[in-house]
Every structure is written in C-alpha cells, then in structure tokens.
C-alpha cells in the first residue's frame, strides 16, 4: 500500500500503533469492522454448507433405511473422539483469545500450539477413517461396492447400493469440505502462532486472534452438526 509513504503534516501516528490501517478513523472502527466482516463471512459459510445439508436431509428422508445401513459402517467411536477433540480445541481457542486480550504471550502461544495439535489430531483420525472407507470400497465411483447389506432393523430387506452410494457421496463431500476448512484453519492458526511468537498481539491489538478464533469455532460447530447427522442413524438397531 502506498499510503504509508504519504507525508502527513502533524502525525497522528503516535496516538496509535502501526496496525491501524489508514482508511479507518480509529482502532475501534477497525476492530469492529474486522469482527463484523468475519461474522458475515461465517454467514456465507453457513449457506455454503447449507446446500449440502439440504440435499442430505432430503435423501435421508427418502432412503432412510439405506442411509442408516451406510451410516452404520462408519466408526462412530472415532467420530465421537473427533467431536471431543474439536470441542477441546475450541476451548484452547477460547484460552488463546483470552490470553491475547490480557497480554499473556506465553499462554497465548501455548494455547495456539495446543489448538494446532488438536487440529492435526482431528485430521489424523479423519485420515484413518477415510482409509478404512477406501479399503471397504465405500468410496463412490467406479470401485464402489455395497452389496448384500441388510437394512438395520429390517433383516429381510436389502439395501439399494445406489442409495448407499448417494450417502457416501454426501458423506465424503460434507466431511471433505469440512476437513478442507480445518486445513485452512490450521494454516490460519500457524500464521497466528508465528505472529504471536513475534510479539505482535497486545491487549490493544489482537484482532487476528479474535477473528481467527471465530472461524475455528465455526468449523467446530459444523462438525457438531455433521457428527450426529452422519454417524448416529438408528444405532440402536
């Protein structure tokens, strides 16, 4: 940006830190704008995932038995573990934001590192799950197989493999999109870690941590919807 080189007669720079971008009137406006911007972005993300949830809900209503059978081939224990992992990571994010707010650099850095570790754990568990699905030929496409499976609770009814394939297509697209957002989140938090290490965040300026935290919480909430919807269909049968 070229504006930082423009000479301004009496410099108001001294009254604020170097992070204040010059098109903002003051730091408060910058902070409020960043926050509102992130909330709006998250609203767009809700709509983005929303289309998928919509398709999933419709097909689950129509093909309930087939979907239940397909869902029960997932490892709900790993799924539950992942849910716990993400909830803990949201907790560490809360610690990070708080630490930034009160200027505790060490706590901030530790919290960010823990968040990253939990994020990687989530992705690792997902990788294990995906590998298992690949081995069972549950990945939609030419090699998909789902023959001779019974509908839970209806032992004399065979699952329609085409419907099961729709389940798995939605499963992979939804969890895949979610995982992509996790990867981006890890990228964001890595950058936050680096900049926190460099001492960039003070009680006066911690906006990136705050809005990064908002993003992470959102990704967590999406998973909290995905897990029961995808994994927990008719498990009692």
């Amino acid at each position: 940006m070229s504006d930082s080189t423009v000479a301004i007669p009496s410099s108001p720079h001294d009254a604020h830190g170097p992070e204040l971008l010059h098109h903002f009137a003051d730091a408060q406006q910058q902070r409020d704008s960043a926050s509102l911007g992130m909330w709006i972005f998250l609203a767009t993300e809700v709509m983005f995932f929303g289309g998928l949830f919509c398709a999933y809900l419709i097909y689950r209503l129509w093909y309930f038995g087939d979907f239940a059978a397909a869902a029960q081939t997932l490892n709900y224990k790993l799924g539950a573990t992942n849910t716990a992992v993400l909830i803990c990571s949201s907790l560490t994010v809360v610690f990070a934001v708080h630490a930034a707010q009160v200027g505790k650099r060490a706590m901030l850095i530790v919290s960010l590192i823990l968040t990253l570790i939990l994020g990687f754990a989530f992705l690792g568990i997902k990788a294990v799950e995906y590998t298992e699905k690949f081995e069972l030929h549950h990945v939609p496409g030419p090699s998909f197989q789902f023959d001779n499976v019974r509908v839970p609770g209806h032992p004399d009814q065979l699952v329609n493999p085409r419907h099961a394939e729709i389940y798995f297509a939605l499963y992979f697209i939804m969890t895949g999109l979610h995982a992509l957002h996790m990867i981006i989140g890890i990228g964001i938090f890595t950058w936050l870690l680096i900049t926190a290490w460099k001492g960039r965040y003070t009680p006066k300026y911690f906006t990136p941590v705050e809005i990064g935290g908002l993003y992470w919480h959102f990704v967590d909430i999406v998973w909290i919807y995905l897990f029961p919807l995808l994994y927990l269909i008719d498990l009692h049968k």
Partner: protein
Amino acid sequence: MAGNVDALFIFLLIVTGLMTLLIFCTLIYFAARYRARPGVLAEQIEGSIPLEITWSIIPLGVFMMIFLWGAVVYFKERTPPRDATEVYVVAKQWMWKLEHAEGQREINELHVPVGRDVKLIMTSQDVIHSFYIPAFRIKQDVLPGRYTIEWFHPTKPGTYHLFCAEYCGTMHSGMIGDIVVMEPAQYEAWMSGTPSGPLSVAGEKIFAELGCSTCHRSDTQGRGPNLLGVFGRPVQLEDGRTVTADENYIRESILDPGAKVVAGFKPVMPTFQGLVSEEQVNALVAYVKSLSQPVNQPGVKAAPGQVLLPKNPPGGNQVQ
C-alpha cells in the same frame, strides 16, 4: 380450455396495458409540466403515507385477484378428468414416442379424435424434455425416472404444433411434431389402420413373460400382493405410510421395489431396472390399470376370476 388461459391473458393485457398507459402518461405529463424554468424552484415533498398505503394495497389486491384466477386455471390444467383416454409418451433425445392405450404407436405425431379428453402419461429415457402444445396452451416437463401427466380436450379438428420446450441438447429444436385432431369417423378409420393390440394386452404378455404372475397371483394369496383393483386405491405400506397406487407407484414398484413395501409382505421382489424398457414399463402400467377398470374401457378384458370394479373407485385415481 385454451380459452380460459386466453381470457386471463387478455385480462392481464388490459390491466397491465392500462397501468403502463397510466404511468407513461403521468411521466410524460410531469416531465413536460414541470420542466425546469428559470427562477422556479422545485417543491420539496417528503412523501405521503396514505398514498403509499393506497398504492401498495390496491396493486396487492389486484395481484391477489390475478393469482386466484391463474390458480383456478392451473388447477383445472393439472387435474385430468377421470375417463380421459390415455396415451403413453416416452421422450428421448430427440424424438417423441407415443403409444395409445389401444396400441397404436406414433413417432412425433399424436392423432386424437375431437371432443374426447386425452391424458398423457409421460416419461423420458434420458434428459428432461417438455411436451408443449401452444395451441392448447399446455406444457409439462417430461422427466427421467418418473411419470408426469398432462391432459387436454381438443375442440377443433386441425393440425397443431408440438414442441419440446426444455433444452435437451443438439437437436432440441428439431424435437417437434404435430398433434392431429380428427373427426371421430376419420379417427376410427385411422385407428383401424394399424394392427396392434391394446397396450394393456401387451402388458399382460410381458407380465407373464417376466414371471410376475408367479408371485402376483389373482387366484390365491401369493408372495406378492394381488393386483386386482389395486390401481387408484390407497395402499398401506409396511412402514406405516399410506400411498395412492398411481402410475408412479406402479412404475417404482417395478424398478425399485424396496422403496415401498406393502404391509404384510416381505421385501423379496427383485428389481427390473435395466431389464425393461420404458415402453415395456408403460405396457405393464397399462395392464395393472386394466385390472381396476370397468368393461367399457378400451383394452380391458376380465381376467379369470376377476371381478370388474365400478366406474369411479372411491379412492380416486388422481396423480400428483
């Protein structure tokens, strides 16, 4: 029936024409009357809530009237009469295949007698098409995987355009044909020219060939439900739902039998997806329908032990 559509259209033309005239004249009048003159300032007028309310409520009222009228016309268009002659339509890239209940097959042409209701039961072999007869003011998309219904009542002999109205690929604009409305006598002559049996008889043959009668027996309780009198009636399913046995239900039962299992039966019916063509499905549907129809419908004969049912079954036979 086209008259109903045209009546509403003309009404709309008048209403919108008047509205356009009103606005245009007002605009021109104001533009001329209040053109800038030296020394004359504009008068600042904030607004007028009574005016806002008036010109919101009145248009809304007019709109609701148009909505109701349009809805009534639409309701009639989507409610085929009970005794309509049925014609099965299979659309494919890029032609229309039609089969009368009496068995005549046509390509890109439909011959019908004047004065008789015609109901089209349509499906597509590939992509979405749309069966459009501008002269009759009717149109209905034709979808793969299910039936859609359209009906009309021809009142004047003549030849009318048939167009495909949903883009379907290279020769979308070549997927056109004619609806030929004939005097009854001419139609009889035309009909007798093609020697083929009624569609439902063809369906009966397929029913036997594919072994359907092994399970769907009409004499004793078989492994599958007895199909006599089924068509058009409510059916209780094993999961508690009740559905109406319409064309789409019969079709689905053939191609995806596990989707709706009748209460009290096991889900042992194999699927015939890929083993029957659309035309064969149409014939089977026609056959099952014939098991619920009184004698004076074309192509119906009593099966052994069959009791033919009264003309208007209580459940109705409407298709959504």
